[in-house]
């Protein structure tokens, strides 16, 4: 506490408004680089939150917790899966612990709350799994960058294209958690699917933490779609896939998943129920690319389970930030220069095995895989790529300026083209 008291009384002299400048003068290039990692260690998405810490710390351990000659300190705070707590912890990390930048959060509402704080306080904030579209589209904040992340509607678009063209599906029902992440993923899927000529028979929105999906399942069954697109995270995904199987629907209607529905964090607790669910994502742990294989093996050795999107994204984010910080010789105190370096960095050593760069709006461009859940030789299930869509940006084939004229996806706007 003594150190903290000293730091806080020292800064108080200049007041909060001048905090940024003071900090720069005070600690230029010396002392450790302090990173504030916000992650849900309690609450609905606590399981994913633990993997955020795993992935992020794995990278720093591998490089000896150092960039150049500056030590790296990661301060982890629990956001409780709750936006109010998250905001409070962001304040604490910034104002009391004096971190140089913030990373993390899992749920969109927690990330949006912290992004608002980043906007007013100026602290750089990197969001490897906060996928809310508008953070890199209509409501960009210069110091909030989606390093090694993705925007929600970016990933399901190739899947819509694939199932329309290769699988011949024409009628699809979506079932999704009722919050922005769900609205945006379904929006991405529905817009591409209906523009190709497919139709969306119905859209079901379940509240977060739904225990019983049977009312939705009954309605889906009676509508007889070609497939169902499921956008669920965490325990909701586990329950939906289990109940889908228990109701005997698995044999009748193919299930398509948003990447998080068949993410390792979900399917590692399931067995054959998850087999054969098709999804799309930039990361597939079952990819036989050497870089991916190496990362997966290292991760499995360290934590005794396969990496999920959370672990992977935060590992890549750490690698990305380290690469950027090297180019500015560790001078993270110079915020504009640091942010600029992060934007310009092309990540070459990521577990994806291909270079990744940001588009002009601060969102990465990826080769997106269509993935299938299959059984590995040791009995675990994992996602294996079956098709690749190269160079998919958050704008798909649309022109960014024109795309951003349409309203953001919501429950009432899903980009569905009436035929």
């Amino acid at each position, binding site marked *: 506490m003594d150190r903290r008291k000293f730091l*806080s*009384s020292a*800064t*108080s002299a200049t*007041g*909060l408004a001048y905090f940024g400048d003071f900090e720069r003068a005070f600690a230029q290039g010396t002392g450790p680089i302090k990173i504030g990692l916000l992650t849900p*260690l*309690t609450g609905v998405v606590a399981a994913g939150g633990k993997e955020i810490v795993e992935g992020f710390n794995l990278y720093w351990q591998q490089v000896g917790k150092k960039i150049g000659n500056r030590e790296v300190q990661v301060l982890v*705070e*629990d956001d409780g899966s*709750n*936006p*109010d*707590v998250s*905001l*409070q*912890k962001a*304040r*604490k990390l910034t*104002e*009391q612990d004096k971190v140089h930048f913030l990373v993390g959060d899992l749920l*969109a*509402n927690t990330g*949006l*709350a912290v992004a*608002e704080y980043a906007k*007013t306080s100026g602290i750089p904030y990197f969001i490897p799994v906060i996928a*809310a579209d508008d953070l890199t589209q209509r409501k960009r904040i210069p110091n909030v960058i989606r390093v090694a992340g993705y925007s929600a509607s970016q990933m399901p678009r190739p899947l819509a294209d694939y199932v329309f063209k290769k699988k011949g599906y024409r009628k699809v029902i979506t079932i999704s958690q*009722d*919050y*922005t992440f769900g609205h945006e993923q379904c929006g991405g899927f529905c817009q591409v699917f209906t523009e190709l000529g497919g139709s969306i028979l119905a859209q079901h929105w379940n*509240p*977060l933490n739904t225990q019983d999906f049977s009312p939705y399942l009954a309605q889906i069954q009676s509508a007889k779609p070609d497939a169902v697109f499921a956008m669920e995270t965490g325990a909701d995904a586990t329950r939906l896939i289990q109940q889908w199987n228990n109701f005997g629907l698995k044999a009748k209607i193919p299930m398509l998943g948003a990447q998080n529905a068949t993410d390792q964090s979900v399917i590692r607790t399931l067995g054959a129920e998850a087999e054969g669910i098709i999804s799309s994502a930039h990361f597939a742990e079952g990819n036989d690319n050497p870089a991916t294989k190496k990362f997966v093996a290292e991760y499995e050795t360290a934590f005794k389970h396969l990496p999920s999107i959370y672990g992977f994204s935060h590992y890549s984010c750490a690698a990305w930030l380290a690469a950027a910080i090297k180019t500015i010789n560790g001078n993270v105190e110079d915020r504009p220069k640091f942010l600029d370096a992060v934007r310009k960095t092309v990540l070459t050593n990521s577990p994806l095995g291909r270079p990744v760069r940001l588009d002009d709006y601060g969102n990465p461009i990826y080769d997106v895989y269509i993935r299938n859940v299959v059984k590995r030789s040791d009995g675990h299930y994992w996602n294996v790529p079956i098709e690749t869509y190269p160079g998919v940006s958050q704008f798909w084939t649309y022109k960014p300026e024109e795309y951003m004229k349409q309203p953001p996806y*919501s*429950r009432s706007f899903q980009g569905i083209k009436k035929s």
Partner: protein
Amino acid sequence: MNLSLHPLRAVIALALLCLVPVLLPGYQTTLATLTLIYTLLAMSVDILAGYAGRTPLCHGALFGVATYVVMYFVTTATGNPWLGALLGIAAAGVVALIFALLAVRTTGVYFLLLTLALGMIIWGVCQRWTSVTGGENGLRGTVRPEWLADPARFFYFVLAITALATFAMWRFVNSPFGLSLKGIRESESRMRSLGYNSAQHLIIAFVFSGLMAGLSGALYAWFNGFVSPSSVALAQSVKGLLIAIIGGIGTLFGSALGAIIIVLLENVVSSFTQRWSMVLGLLFVLAMIFTPEGLLGKLRQLTGRRRAAA
């Protein structure tokens, strides 16, 4: 209760609190502001739980209604923050009146459950009425008047409001009207047979308590610049009640102690262990076993100053 005999004590407490931004600058001042806001919320719960003998589980919702109204009025409708705060408090009062009309005829666990259900309705509305409340994502923006942008000045402002509201609540529970509430707590049937309209008294107490919860909610909106359904959720109501219970139900000022403990646990202990909520749970269990009368209640007992509460 004893404070009337010792106005000096109130002055000393206020003077000490005035030193907070000097002694604990920066982030700690922010935490102190938050503590004051939660103290207000817990005291509003205590009016009903401690004095009227009706334990409510809807004050998080009343608190949140005010927060939502302030956020909506200032960000979406681009209104004046001061007017927004007044509207927020009024909205909490109106909702409290509706809740009171529905709930005051019940007692004990039925009152608890009914207020819980009413609070859940507010939560449901905030969750589903996306076009106004922003749904799960909530509402964001700077709603604090520019004049109060400085954290230290905001602390003094919240301190002044809290002091005034505390005085009002203290007057309220120690007035003859407050005595009638205690009478209802001890024996409602006797109070009725003495000619008191107990339902009316409870409604007035409920609305006053709701207005105070609304006041803390409006200050929270200014403090946080963000609101989401978690602010109106059951957990928020429970937090208010927990603070009041740990501090000491029916002591009013105990809430300040409770709030200090909860805020410290949430914000300081959480840096040392992920299991801070377990620490909170343990603390609560221990408090229930060893000091069911709360920390302030225990202190008064130990110093022999405790008067018969009834």
